[in-house]
């Protein structure tokens, strides 16, 4: 029998979990469902939908802290923060269009549970670095809390870190406290055209090592740049390397000028302001270049930044892949036309030999069943992780198998 549970308060969440635990009913956990296609497919007939747990509970701009229920949409949180000139600094991406659902529905809880961060991650850290405290229900139907509502806290284990990126497999969040930061007064994106990939990566590495405090660094090879809706980028007819600087006006202008000066020795330079800069980085964050090419299998690859072009070249020499770089090379979005065992192994092996990790973000459900979606864990780590899962969810009722088979 299929059942859909859609609790509206914490007590109901707890009751539902108690029922599921006593009946041994594993359940699929979701917020707005925008990332249901991410992870190993579960095929469970019970669904726990937390989208009714909504609302900002507490927001004190001068404390840089916001507490909301997990089903609150990022859009609502963004609007609330915008009024005070603040934001979620980790720049959460909206992967819904890539994964085939409507945009702008993602929830705070889902974003935290998947630890999704955008381009600014290189400067300010990931979602997990901004996740300060929580209330949650574990697989024993017990309510517990961890962390706190202040920005600096080391009282007890940092269980928030475990929940961030757990894909709903450990506990059900009922309240989330995040750190928020002031929005930058001014933003500029400097574009440098025509760099070949190795030099682009080493240029971005130089910028990261400079005093210019960049807040986003990407490189789009020509084929990807051509798909941008920002005309300066798509009309250039060549690769685009982009660096964003943000901050108080005089500082931003100054750093932008410096970067332009440095870059002008390397190629043609342009500048994006305001809306166009925002659009460009949204495309980078949301993997827009691959959204409409539904036939492509999409990978998210984390590597040591200077290895980036080496990894893509290795993959590209053996299959017809396309890709672009974020996080100064630390993040590669890569798409392959095939999703067979050979090409999947090719991607994984090339990434692993450079010491990185690959996640299969978009692929047919049958592929995500036979190929590990997340980087396989060494045996000792797998065992330890399985024990950690057990410590929250002894009966395995929350999203079993979503991260790893058998866990």
């Amino acid at each position: 029998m299929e059942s859909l549970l859609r609790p509206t308060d914490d007590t109901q969440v707890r009751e539902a979990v108690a029922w599921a635990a006593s009946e041994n009913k594993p359940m699929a956990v979701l917020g707005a469902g925008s990332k249901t296609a991410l992870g190993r497919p579960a095929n469970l007939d019970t669904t726990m939908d937390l989208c009714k747990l909504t609302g900002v509970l507490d927001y004190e701009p001068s404390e840089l802290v916001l507490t909301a229920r997990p089903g609150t949409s990022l859009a609502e949180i963004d609007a609330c923060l915008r009024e005070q000139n603040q934001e979620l600094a980790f720049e959460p991406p909206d992967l819904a269009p890539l994964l085939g659902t409507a945009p702008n529905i993602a929830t705070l809880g889902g974003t935290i549970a998947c630890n999704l961060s955008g381009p600014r991650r290189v400067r300010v850290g990931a979602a997990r670095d901004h996740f300060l405290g929580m209330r949650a229900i574990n697989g024993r139907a017990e309510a517990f809390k961890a962390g706190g509502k202040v920005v600096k806290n080391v009282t007890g284990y940092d269980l928030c870190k475990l929940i961030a990126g757990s894909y709903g497999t450990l506990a059900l969040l009922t309240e989330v406290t995040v750190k928020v930061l002031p929005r930058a007064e001014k933003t500029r994106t400097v574009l440098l055209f025509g760099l070949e990939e190795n030099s682009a990566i080493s240029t971005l590495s130089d910028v990261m090592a400079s005093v210019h405090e960049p807040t986003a660094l990407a490189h789009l090879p020509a084929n990807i740049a051509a798909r941008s809706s920002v005309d300066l980028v798509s009309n250039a007819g060549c690769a685009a390397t982009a660096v964003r600087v943000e901050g108080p006006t005089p500082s931003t202008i100054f750093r932008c000028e410096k970067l332009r000066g440095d870059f002008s020795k390397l190629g043609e330079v342009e500048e994006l302001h305001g809306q166009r800069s925002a659009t460009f980085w949204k495309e980078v964050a949301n993997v827009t270049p691959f959204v409409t090419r539904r036939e492509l299998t999409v990978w998210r690859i984390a590597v040591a930044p200077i290895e980036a072009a080496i990894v893509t070249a290795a993959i590209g020499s053996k299959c017809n892949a396309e890709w672009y770089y974020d996080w100064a090379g630390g993040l590669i979005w890569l798409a392959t036309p095939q999703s067979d065992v050979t090409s999947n192994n090719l991607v994984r092996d090339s990434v692993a030999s450079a010491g990185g990790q690959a996640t299969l973000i978009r692929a047919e459900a049958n592929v995500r069943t036979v190929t590990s979606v997340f980087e396989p864990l060494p045996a000792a780590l797998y065992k330890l992780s399985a024990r950690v899962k057990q410590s929250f969810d002894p009966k395995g009722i929350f999203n079993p198998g979503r991260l790893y088979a058998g866990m």
Partner: protein
Amino acid sequence: MKMPETDEGVIAKRSSLVGRFRKFLSEESVINDHDELKVYETDGLTAYHQLPMIVVLPDTTAQVAKILKICTSEGVKVVPRGAGTGLSGGALPLADGVTVGLAKFNRILDIDYGNRTATVQTGVTNLAITQAVEAKGFYYAPDPSSQIACTIGGNVAENSGGVHCLKYGVTTNNILGLEMVLIDGEIIRLGGKHMESAGYDLLGLIAGSEGLLGVITEVTVRILPRPASARALLVGFSTVEAGGKCVVEIISAGVIPSGMEMMDKAAIHAAEDYSDAGYPLDVEALLIVELDGPKAEVDHLLQRVEEIATSCGAVNIRASKNEGERLKFWAGRKAAFPAIGRISPDYYCMDGTIPRGRLTEVLARVTDLSDKYNLRVANVFHAGDGNLHPLILYDANKPDELERAEKFGADILKLCVEVGGVLTGEHGVGVEKRDLMGTMFNEQDLNQQQRVKCAFDTEGLLNPGKVFPTLHRCAELGRMHIHHGRVPFPELPRF
């Protein structure tokens, strides 16, 4: 402070353990001589001391693994120890425990400027990392005041902060990978030079786990380019309230200084006497606000902060004109602890965090408590992130002063929790705040944390007696209570 019961059976194995350790460790790396053990009897929280049963000083990961395997098979408790500068008694030995000292893990293994990482052994000091990379213009951002002595492993175990963590984050935000040994001797590696790893974020969990989950042997940290410039402002206020308001106003204006420290009158005077930093002595509260980044930004923000400070009623404002002056402004603050040490035989450093907006109220109540316990207090704090360090002055040689100081401290921490804050911002729970955990967490909260501990250490051999007020057996914690042999929820909930 009640510590786990001493196991006489283990004590009886002492000499056989020493023999087994000496099979793969040199003579001087296995310490069981009373006088030599005394060096390890306490950490930075000197009110507590206990001689360890044995101290071992391994220098390879394989040796650590062997030690832990032996301890597991013999049921011997293990206490990891870095430099012993911890302020919450995290490295306090156990009478029937082996202290694993990691000071010999002092090599820098890899510096990778292209990827901006440094990989070092666990015993490398915090400052040594910065020193190893500063010639190329880099540094390691978290800067605890103990940085000349404390180890990176200790920093990870405590998730230590520093005066610049307002802008650059604490340890957990600045590490990318580590190697550690589990209690059964299994060696695991987490993370690496890349920014994200699949599976549960065990790296994030280990940061701040106070030596209860594994022995860290190697750490990969992120290094950052030194900001182009930095300037500091010294701002004096005639009331603490005005200073507290200024802190809130600066943040509300969207300015995140790289550091924002506050001192009260007692701390200002002690620091000035000790270090000649040039602090104004006729003020009740002093703020040090540091801005860093491109010069254009620093000058611009400095002016804004000055304006805000003036509007909050600042009576004294000085901006550093050069690097020497900036460092001088900091010299007083950085020496605040030893400075207090000079005006009082003993002091007890507290570490709660509160919402910044409650600063004035909390300080007023700390003053009341100071009257109640008849002990002086000097306040220094990381005002930018609401992390208080009230220093309670006492004399351990006077009857009941230590006890009074501890009660006073506990009241301050309870107050922090009461106003929406937490027990510890950076020094950790250790033994010191262990029995106060109940003021912040209920039994279910603590049980969940202890179940995570069980996932790493089923027998509870790693650093027991720290962090958790009550020790539960893992089997007991693992039981599911919702059954009672029946199905209590036969109905499918409908909502």
